[in-house]
């Protein structure tokens, strides 16, 4: 039951821009999310150093430690972007305005992608300094992380919008999100493993894993586009 919408031409684009600018401005003024995510990541690396009792990581282990840390940091960001917004009444205000659901969804996804990219600019070099000798595979990691960020952001925004209106919002979000993110983890770890291998990077199967990540992103973008309006009606 789609809402009756009397939205002028171009309004979704300007709504998208406004919401995105608001989220980024809040972040730039408070520095709440990205620094916390970066700190969390570095702390997690230290924990992994002792938990695994290894001071060098390569291959599959390196990919796993890096990507699991990014994934958990993403959950922090998702909680800030959605749970905090809900508690401060942001969504109620947005609902009062004639904002298209798709514009809101897109704005939140892009904000999350920006947060995650900013985090990785800190977390990946930190990881390389702490755990790796050979850095030649790192540039090739960038496109993999871009696709993985998009997947994390799309699914995260969709699930967080479901969870945020429930009673157990900060518990339920990760609970639903983690199984949904398993394919992203498989794809990103599969692509990153040969790039972070000990004897220098190799590019075996990189295309196949990137195709999996891209397929995931496209499917969940389409699902989000199709269902997001239903999450706003109230």
């Amino acid at each position, binding site marked *: *039951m789609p*809402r009756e919408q009397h939205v002028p031409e171009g309004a979704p684009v300007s709504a998208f821009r406004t919401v995105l600018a608001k989220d980024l401005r809040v972040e730039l003024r408070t520095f709440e999310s990205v620094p916390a995510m970066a700190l969390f990541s570095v702390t997690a690396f230290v924990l992994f150093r002792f938990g695994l009792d290894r001071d060098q990581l390569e291959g599959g282990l390196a990919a796993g430690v890096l990507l699991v840390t990014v994934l958990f940091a993403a959950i922090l960001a998702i909680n800030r972007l959605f749970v905090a917004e809900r508690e401060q009444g942001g969504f109620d205000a947005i609902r009062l305005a004639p904002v298209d659901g798709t514009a809101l969804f897109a704005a939140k996804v892009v904000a999350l992608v920006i947060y995650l990219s900013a985090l990785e600019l800190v977390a990946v070099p930190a990881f390389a300094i702490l755990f790796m000798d050979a850095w030649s595979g790192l540039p090739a990691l960038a496109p993999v992380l871009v696709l993985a960020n998009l997947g994390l952001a799309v699914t995260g925004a*969709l*699930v967080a919008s*479901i*969870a945020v*209106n*429930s*009673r*157990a*919002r900060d518990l*339920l979000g990760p*609970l*639903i999100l983690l*199984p*949904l993110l*398993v*394919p992203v983890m*498989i*794809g990103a770890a*599969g692509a990153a493993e040969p790039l972070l291998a000990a004897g220098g990077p190799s590019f075996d199967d990189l295309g*196949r*894993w990137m195709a*999996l990540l891209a*397929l*995931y992103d496209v*499917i*969940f973008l389409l*699902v989000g586009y*199709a*269902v997001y309006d*239903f*999450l706003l*009606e*109230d």
Partner: protein
Amino acid sequence: MPLPSLRALAFATPVAVAAGFALVFFYAPLDADQGFVQKIFYLHVPLAICALVGFVVAGVHAIRHLRSGDPVHDLRSYVSIHASIIFGLAVLVTGAIWARASWGQWWVWGEPTLVSFLIVFLLYCTYYPLRYAIEDRERQARYASVFAVTAGAFVPLNFIAVRMSESLVHPRVLATAEGGMPPRMWLTFLVCLAGVALLWTTLVRFEIAAKLTSAKLSRLRRAIEGTDAPAPSSRIAPSAQPRPAGAPESV
């Protein structure tokens, strides 16, 4: 659409299941490699197929619910997921027994079908806490449908991803069937599949009928008592009551 009645289904299901088991034990040949334990395949694989198809069916009902706003579709989606989760648990148990017997371990991580099934199962287990956590009935139904659509799209994607990541240990029974599975095994398998599918359908239809009837009963009871108080019914079960006439659609 003309569906078979619940009574006809309730007769057909035990017949098909009993016929399936009779064929499994007295007709199907013993597997040359695995021996007797291979016969669990006639239960495990149909259960898995029905559970996965049931999740997709739930997604289709959820789409219809979102398009029409009719709570009956939400009820169907909810009941489909319910039955499929029970079947899914049975799949994991029978799969573990089979794995223990043929590979010597209860759980094999290198096995894509097993792992992807576990992920799908864990995902659908969060359907219940999600419903519990939303109080407003109409919103609960809508959000549960969004979840069912998302998860329904996830099921095939997840199988692709996990299969890409692992080697093939799981017997590709159906894929190698052209050369491998003899016709007697095929016949037995198909009868078992029909029996389990009928069982799934019967359980789903039965639960829907039970929920609709109890909703009707409580409506009648309230009409007799003449109170306008809302029904003190279950908190998570989707309400099967039609929207009262003239009530506004959601804004």
